[in-house]
């Protein structure tokens, strides 16, 4: 096989886009929750882990196929998201923001360690729900998992865009994130809108978890820590609170990581994500698709 620079580049782009679409799925939840509560929900990465485990139970123990497993996992995570918001975040709505952040970190630790207790810290092998077929397009390699990831992620993103832009619940979500007080005066039920946001965000993260399980064949209780932070980076990169921004940010992050591990060294992969973050924050802190807001004097 030829290993020219251009060839390598395209191959890494393929890998990067499939990885990036998973980041995008997690980033969407981050961005929606941040948009509505101004909370960096550090527990979001663990919802993704939870989703992966539900998917694991569905496929390996209940022997379900991909689609039912995905749906059950999304529903389960949505429920978990609603419960977490109800118990841990809602009573703190008027607390200092840093206190809510600490609570989010606490929830994150809690989910990780409960999972360690329940499922042991050892990684689990995610069953192969698809026969891994490798397609050769020209001299490039695309496998069936990558296609499934990409298609699923696209379908989910289209669905989310539809919900947010076209449905009543979506309108309420946008209204609350724009101005919660005004939305309340317009008769929007803030609490249920926030629950809805957590449900949607958590479901997407869970989908990301199942897809990653399929892609890497391995899941563990701490798998959400680093991707969780990176997905937040993706959300900031695209412009926090902006839904298309999270998608774009996720894809860019995935591609850059693939390029760095392909051309430099995989040990610097994580540093690359954070380096992008710093650069974007310093030169365009509102993100690629965000709006600039300035405090009025």
């Amino acid at each position, binding site marked *: 096989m030829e290993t020219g620079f251009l060839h390598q580049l395209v191959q890494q782009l393929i890998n990067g886009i499939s990885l990036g679409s998973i980041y995008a799925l997690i980033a969407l939840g981050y961005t929606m929750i*941040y948009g509505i509560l*101004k909370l*960096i929900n550090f527990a979001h990465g663990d919802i993704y882990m939870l989703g992966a485990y539900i998917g694991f139970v569905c496929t390996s123990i209940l022997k379900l196929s991909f689609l039912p497993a995905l749906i059950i996992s999304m529903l389960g995570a949505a429920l978990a998201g609603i419960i977490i918001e109800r118990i*841990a975040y809602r*009573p*703190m709505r008027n*607390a*200092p923001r*840093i*206190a*809510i*952040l*600490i*609570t989010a*970190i*606490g*929830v*994150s*630790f*809690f989910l*990780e*360690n*409960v999972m*360690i*207790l329940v499922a042991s810290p050892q990684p689990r092998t995610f069953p192969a729900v698809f026969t891994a077929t490798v397609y050769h397009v020209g001299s490039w390699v695309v496998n069936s998992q990558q296609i499934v990831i990409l298609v699923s992620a696209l379908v989910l993103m289209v669905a989310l865009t539809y919900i947010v832009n076209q449905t009543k619940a979506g309108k309420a979500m946008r209204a609350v994130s724009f101005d919660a007080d005004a939305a309340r005066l317009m008769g929007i039920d803030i609490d249920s809108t926030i629950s809805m946001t957590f449900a949607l965000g958590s479901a997407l993260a869970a989908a990301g978890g199942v897809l990653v399980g399929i892609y890497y064949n391995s899941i563990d209780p701490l798998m959400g*820590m680093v991707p969780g*932070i990176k997905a*937040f*980076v993706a959300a*900031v990169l695209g412009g*926090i609170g902006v839904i298309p921004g999270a998608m774009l940010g996720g894809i860019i992050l995935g591609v850059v990581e693939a390029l760095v591990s392909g051309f430099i*060294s995989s*040990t*610097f992969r*994580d*540093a690359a*994500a*954070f*380096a992008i*973050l*710093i650069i974007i*924050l*310093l030169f365009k*802190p509102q993100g690629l698709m965000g709006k600039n807001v300035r*405090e009025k*004097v």
Partner: protein
Amino acid sequence: MNKVRKFDLKALAASVVVFAALQGMMAAEIIGPFWELNLVLICINIILASSLNMINGFTGQFSIGHAGFLAVGAYVGAVMTVKLGFSFPLAIVAGTIAAGILGFLIGLPTLRLDGDYLAIATLGLGEIIRICILNIEYVGGASGLMGIPRMTNFTVTFWLMIAVLFFIKNFKNSAHGRACLAIRENEIAADTMGIDTTKYKVMAFTLGASFAGTAGVLFSHYFFIAHPASFTFMRSFDVLTMVVLGGLGSLTGSITGAILLTFISAALADFPEWRMIIYSLAMIILMLYRPQGLFGNKELSEKVFSSLKGGKKDE
């Protein structure tokens, strides 16, 4: 004003008493090696928490990358003693200065950001520092730098902690400290009071980072090893939790938070599988019931001092 000096003397006397008591209990083996280790850890955590409080609590700049500076201190200190053969005190100075310089270089560009953006940038930079260390073969790469002599003991740690606490207390009660508090309260108003906000933000950040470096040198010279895995963002979260739990802006709060969390963590050491679950639940419950932290932004002694007739609120 004599009251201020009197307070300092009293605090110093109290430190001597506490030190003598603890040292005595160790000599009499009432405090065994396990709790001795945790006492050292508590002192190190107090240094970390109170230095992070300078940034987050006094100045209101939301930093969650403290583990990065801890790492720099740990590694620079270890390189000084293990690789270059310098003495331990020199290693402490070097680790402190190195972390301070890095804090300055990082703080200068990033402190323009505010709120969550600064938080996530500092988190990212902390991780970048760790990943860079991970890739330096000279300091052991992913397997860590081993064979560090145990030069840290309780005495050194305790008195360095006291020194750092005095530094931070005096800082808080100076014009420089007031400038930082003003920035926390209202940055635009601070600006119009003639305060160069960037300068003071960077100052607090640099000082906070330096002390984290000090803690790092103590850390690596107590546990024989400097390992990249000890300095992930989880460590930063740990320190942040101590600060917020004690009360942002309260030095006595940071001390209490550090003692409390280290203690909880140590007391649960016999139940490894339940330890983190209880720890995290404690975190959530404490925040639910006491979101402003145990002390708010007040000091433990504040009430006592403000009641002194005509006395200014000093401590």
